[in-house]
């Protein structure tokens, strides 16, 4: 049974990590990154062609983690598959031992490196969650019976920093109604705003895992502020990074990340750390937070 599920359902605080599969067939580096995280996280998200850039699939890498007894959270987006393929990949995932699934709409193909591709979106994230819940109940979307059913632990995403906030919460409630049992959020840099979001969704009684992206530089913060939905890195954090000499940036990044985690920890049921390549900082950050 999913340790991730067990921990969340017993009210424990969880830490999850994230790995982006590589472009190409050399998966040693990404498995090595997973090994680095193994002792510090409960489960690791495997992204599904993140930013709509062609890579190895999340199903294959999730399966490789299962072989190594590391628990994956299989990310599944609606961008590239119709309902037949989505349901089939879910059945395949279960057959490979995958239990945790994060259902997303998926970045539009124009964001990635195959901008001319046909966007699919036969289902949206809410409909995908419902489809997966239906499989859990032993039937497919056309109400045909399955020969033995999966029992996925289903999750979804929410953006606490979105403006306006209400459409996000409306959609979050729909996701819960069709089977989302946990939420992972977009990166949090403003604990105050996160707190006001949490206050609005507390009564929904669903575990929220706060997204934490390790900030590598002031330039990255500015880029995200301009281009990434739902992320606002405040000026004081940007200044903290830009005032730090380059050789001390990693140390500073770890310090800022640990501070944000300490601030959000009392508000939610876990943190999801996205190291974006600075994976070696994760153990240090977690030790710092747990100390």
């Amino acid at each position, binding site marked *: 049974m999913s340790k991730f599920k067990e921990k969340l359902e017993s009210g424990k605080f969880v830490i999850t990590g994230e790995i982006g599969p590589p472009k190409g067939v050399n998966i040693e580096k990404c498995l090595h990154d997973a090994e680095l995280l193994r002792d510090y996280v409960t489960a690791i998200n495997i992204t599904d062609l993140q930013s709509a850039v062609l890579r190895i699939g999340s199903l294959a890498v999730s399966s490789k983690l299962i072989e190594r007894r590391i628990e994956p959270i299989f990310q599944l987006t609606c961008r590239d598959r119709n309902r037949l393929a989505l349901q089939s990949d879910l059945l395949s995932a279960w057959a490979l031992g995958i239990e945790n699934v994060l259902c997303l709409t998926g970045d539009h193909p124009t964001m990635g490196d195959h901008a001319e591709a046909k966007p699919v979106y036969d*289902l949206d*994230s809410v409909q995908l969650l419902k489809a997966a819940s239906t499989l859990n109940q032993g039937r497919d979307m056309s109400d045909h019976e399955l020969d033995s059913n999966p029992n996925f632990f289903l999750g979804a995403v929410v953006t606490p920093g979105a403006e306006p906030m209400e459409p996000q919460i409306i959609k979050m409630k729909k996701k819960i*109604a069709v089977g989302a049992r946990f939420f992972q959020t977009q990166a949090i840099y403003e604990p105050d705003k996160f707190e006001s979001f949490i206050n609005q969704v507390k009564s929904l009684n669903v575990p929220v895992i706060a997204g934490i992206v390790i900030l590598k530089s002031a330039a990255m913060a500015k880029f995200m502020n301009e281009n990434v939905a739902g992320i606002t890195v405040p000026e004081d954090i940007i200044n903290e990074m830009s005032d730090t000499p380059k050789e001390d940036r990693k140390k500073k990044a770890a310090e800022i990340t640990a501070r944000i985690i300490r601030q959000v920890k009392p508000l939610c049921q876990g943190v999801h750390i996205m190291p974006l390549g600075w994976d070696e900082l994760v153990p240090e950050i977690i030790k710092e937070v747990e100390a």
Partner: protein
Amino acid sequence: MIVAEQKPLEDIIRMIVPYERVLILGCGTCMTVCDAGGEREVSFLHNALQLAQARSGEGAHTFSEHTVKRQCDPEFLEALGEKTADVDVILSLGCGIGVQAIAEYLPDMPVLPGVNTSFMGMTKESGVWDERCAACGECRLEDTGGICPITRCTKGILNGPCAGVKNGKCEANKDMDCAWILIYQRLERLQQLDKMRRYYPPRNFRAIPRPRRIMSKAETVTGESNG
């Protein structure tokens, strides 16, 4: 209306190479309104093709021009009559439907598309047209405050905004409004936010197999009054 853009002149010149006598055929309905292929554009294109031929010194085309009221209606194609008698090809400035209607009506006559048919839309301002309908066959504007998520959301999703909305704009195009934020704002203004709280199931693509056909249930109205 159907909105189109005229193809680049060099594409049109390349298409007509095998043919000597070219009839440039305009359409008096949508293509006239969207400035892509009405009487005026037919005349401009006629001049442009003649000029290009004179300048290059290549080609020995002769051009004629004509505009029918609607290329998509065989009734109006009858009016073509002998205009097609002495031509080798029709260069249609009708939409994709017009081109195909001519191809069906004149089985022995080659027909070339002079425009790229783009979408069904409305006039935003003079010279600007915006797409508004995807002809999905299952109109849901009742539930979405009169704003179509299938057309105006780049992902065509049905249950609210994706995580890609920033400052009310779409992740795929920062100049484009997020359809779901527009829907949210309008439903809120109409005090109908409950419509957004409902679950909308996946679309039924079986209900809209391509190509589609509609048979009139009312008595057929003939004549030009429906133009």
